[in-house]
């Protein structure tokens, strides 16, 4: 009895500590990549920046719930389409931001001197991502 209470408390602390570390790291990662400022800039919604922060929080909690729960809903495929689309756009921004952080482009254009074809090369990356992703889901995994 006593041991089970101690174990429960220990688990509680471990869970909370793990959650704190992961949550802090996640927010730091999102902030570092500058996706939220970019979205605010594009949507010209400076006023709602706090709302965006809340969205990230709510999304993280929903995601956590979804990964641990075992329920099912009987939703239509349209929801799947929308879900997949949004996931893709977000991941695309993430990937773009990473390329950005790694300074691939400036170095590439400087070294090889292909500055005027920069946008074409950007398209290479965009199409590469789409192609790689489609190839994986449609052919590679089957």
């Amino acid at each position: 009895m006593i041991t089970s209470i101690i174990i429960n408390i220990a688990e509680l602390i471990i869970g909370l500590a793990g959650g704190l570390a992961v949550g802090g790291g996640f927010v730091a990662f999102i902030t570092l990549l500058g996706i939220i400022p970019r979205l605010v800039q594009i949507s010209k919604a400076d006023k709602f920046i706090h709302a965006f922060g809340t969205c990230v929080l709510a999304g993280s909690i929903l995601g956590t719930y979804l990964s641990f729960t075992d329920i099912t809903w009987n939703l239509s495929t349209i929801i799947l389409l929308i879900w997949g689309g949004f996931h893709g756009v977000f991941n695309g921004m993430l990937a773009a931001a990473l390329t950005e952080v790694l300074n691939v482009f400036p170095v590439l254009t400087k070294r090889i001197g292909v500055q005027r074809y920069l946008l074409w090369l950007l398209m290479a990356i965009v199409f590469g991502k789409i192609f790689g992703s489609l190839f994986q889901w449609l052919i590679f995994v089957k």
Partner: protein
Amino acid sequence: MTTIVYLRMKKNIELSYLKAVKLKDIALVATSEDVKKTLENTSIYQISKKDNNIVVIDSFLVIKHLNKMHPDLEFQLVGPTQTIIRINKNNKAPSVLKVAFVWLLLFIGTAMTIMNFHYDVSMQEVQQKIHYLFTGEQNEFPLWIQIPYSFGLGMGMLLFFNHWFKKRFNEEPSPLEVELFNYQQDLDHYIHHHENRLNDNQHHH
């Protein structure tokens, strides 16, 4: 009363051949009309083969040189303190073959990295679980999520970079342009320091 000459150094200039650099090439001059012409055509520096492709001209040396020639004038500097001269002997467009190679490199490289990323984070499994959670049916290949996801991936990147080929979505600079600008600034800053003889202790006589 001494005439005041205002000098504003140009930050960066590009030359395509070796030539004698005149003051008007590296600086903007503001003063009374009669001295302006002579000042602008004063030779400042002769670029030679051993300069390789970057020369930094410090405003201090320019003023020193001009002061010697025109002791009656007073020189005032506004703006940047030095000019970077880049010598570009062959400024022709890169070959189509080279661009095609880089294009293919990026295309295949990003395709592979995204696949590795999907494996790394077990995206297939997560999507299967989401599919089951939403519809109540097991499906090993939840394409209804995966195909929109794939196209969304490209859209997100475009959104981030603010470009669709040459067309842009709004007037603001994209993070890519800002990044290129910052990188150029960093390079200039480095060159300012290391190619400028005034910053080198060994050359102080």
